[in-house]
């Protein structure tokens, strides 16, 4: 890939560079600074160490407090991301192959929930999922039993999937819409049935979109705290909740340490995935 030189490249970029410096880079430096200092701003590894070593007793079992929370966050986030991918990939494919008019309609339908405030959407799910909520009224009217969802991991996952699905669909859709139809015809011409076309051409070519979709869903869902508080009835303490709790308790250094560790882990995961797709998409050897 060749990089194109834009005239006035530097000048055009200046507003963003300034913005990025002030609101991205400087805060990151502060996070790192707080993470590795104590209350007197002396250098220390204690905060980071505390994340890995802090123990507490839950139901008579001793466990590493924050690692357990972290794994739980990661588990729910991964489950949500996988569900988003399973729902979003076919949806993106159907959208990309639909007529232009239908593409616009579907795009609007996907975007509409995003126009509503995130908190309101989550509250709406509370009303739906409550034990006496809309879902259960509906089920009892049908003569089926009630289900208990609110306050379970399932409810948290539903909330995350609902909130983050568009972030999965859109990047995949934009890659698929650009895909040259002739490539799919060529694959069929060379002996592929529909399943093979999907497996050998569409899927590998859509991997960059899948990767950005995964990034855009996994990162916010791993660090969410609001959804888990509202839909998990506060029973599922996630890493986002832990960070928020420490900030609220004015324990800035430990909160920063947790945020920093989370960031490093996510960046490493993303770098690994990026390398994998680069290899799959442009590296040459497949199968």
């Amino acid at each position: 890939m060749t990089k194109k030189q834009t005239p006035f490249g530097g000048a055009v970029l200046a507003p963003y560079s300034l913005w990025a410096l002030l609101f991205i880079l400087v805060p990151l430096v502060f996070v790192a600074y707080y993470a590795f200092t104590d209350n007197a701003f002396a250098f220390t590894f204690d905060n980071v160490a505390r994340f890995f070593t802090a123990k507490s007793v839950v139901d008579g079992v001793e466990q590493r407090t924050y690692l357990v929370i972290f794994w739980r966050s990661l588990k729910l986030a991964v489950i949500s991301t996988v569900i988003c991918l399973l729902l979003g990939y076919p949806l993106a494919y159907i959208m990309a192959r639909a007529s232009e008019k239908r593409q616009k309609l579907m795009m609007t339908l996907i975007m509409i929930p995003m126009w509503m405030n995130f908190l309101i959407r989550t509250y709406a799910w509370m009303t739906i999922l409550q034990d006496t909520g809309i879902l259960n009224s509906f089920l009892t009217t049908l003569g089926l039993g009630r289900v208990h969802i609110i306050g379970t991991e399932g409810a948290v996952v539903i909330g995350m999937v609902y909130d983050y699905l568009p972030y999965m669909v859109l990047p995949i859709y934009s890659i698929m819409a650009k895909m040259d139809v002739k490539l799919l015809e060529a694959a069929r011409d060379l002996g592929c049935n529909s399943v093979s076309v999907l497996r050998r051409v569409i899927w590998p070519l859509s991997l960059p979109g899948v990767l950005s979709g995964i990034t855009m869903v996994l990162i916010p869902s791993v660090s969410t705290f609001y959804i888990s508080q509202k839909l998990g009835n506060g029973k599922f303490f996630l890493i986002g909740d832990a960070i928020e709790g420490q900030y609220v308790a004015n324990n800035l250094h430990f909160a920063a340490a947790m945020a920093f560790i989370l960031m490093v882990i996510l960046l490493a995961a993303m770098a690994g995935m990026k390398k994998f797709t680069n290899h799959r998409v442009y590296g040459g050897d497949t199968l």
Partner: protein
Amino acid sequence: MKKIIELKNISKAYDGETVLDHIDLDIYDNEFLTLLGPSGCGKTTTLRIIGGFEHPDEGDVTFLGERINDVPPHKRNVNTVFQKYALFPHLNVFENVAFPLRERKVPKAEIEQKVQEMLELVQLSHLAKRRVTGLSGGQQQRVAIARALIGRPKVLLLDEPLGALDLKLRKDMQQELKKIQKATGITFIFVTHDQEEALTMSDTIVVMSEGKIQQIGTPVDIYNEPQNAFVADFIGESNILDGVMLEDLKVRFSGHTFRCVDKGFQPKEPVDVVVRPEDVDIVSEEKGMLRGVVTSVTFMGVHYEVIVDIGGFKWMIQTTDFVDVDEHIGLSIDPDAIHIMKKSEYSGLYGDYSSFSNELDELSEPGEDESEDAE
């Protein structure tokens, strides 16, 4: 010769607009057949129907005698070289060529060997591990051909494959394609709007216009014996005049009665007369069968292209003799240089060179055929 593909009475319309109008075409084993016509004539649609990407609204496609209208592309023993090659950007050269073999679960060692052979045929062995996106147009072209040939199809379809190459490369590829076709013995169906390309490469040319086949024949037939004014105009340069067949071997046009070699017309039948620019001799005014004034002279390298006004009709003449603008000259035409055609719907539409410069502009626009009739 054995018939491989038969198109019987094929029609196709998009949104009520007829693209193919009752086409009949037989394609034989081991032949290099070219579908030639201007954009929108239906040639690409014909190719896509043979490939299985379009379904005819009417009529049958048969392959070795079997009806294949409803056979999907991946089950047809036909492969395509696409206009812009359609190489898989996520695979390297080797894997692009190996693609159809992997689909058939051919053993690894055999794939390795066959791909190497095929890459040798198209002279790309040294680039096997390269990414296809980094290749030049000519190299991508070769990969596309290798990929389409490796499955040993009975028929190879080529959709304007040379359109994106520059002139020199195009000439080389023409030779090479012809060589590959001879070496493999595979039937090639080649789509182009470039009449020169069609004339140099083909065994059979199918001239199409407005969804209909205008003429099927060898390059020599098509050039020397065009069936109507459209074919005469589209293939090469021609002066097409209104004439009257007085009797066998005698035709009158431009106010002069000429001897000719055509017969079998009704007495006094109105006809179209074709005279190729290279078949006209320039003589002194008094010796000429026709007389006129030179209006323009263009140096073309091998010859001059001279436009002569004869009674308001502009003739094109190709000559190696130099004449000057505004010079009065005479023209002499041999009987066998005159070709007589029956009147058709295309009569009167072509053949006069009064708007010659415009025509040149149109001809020199490359790539105008891209949004072909397929969409």
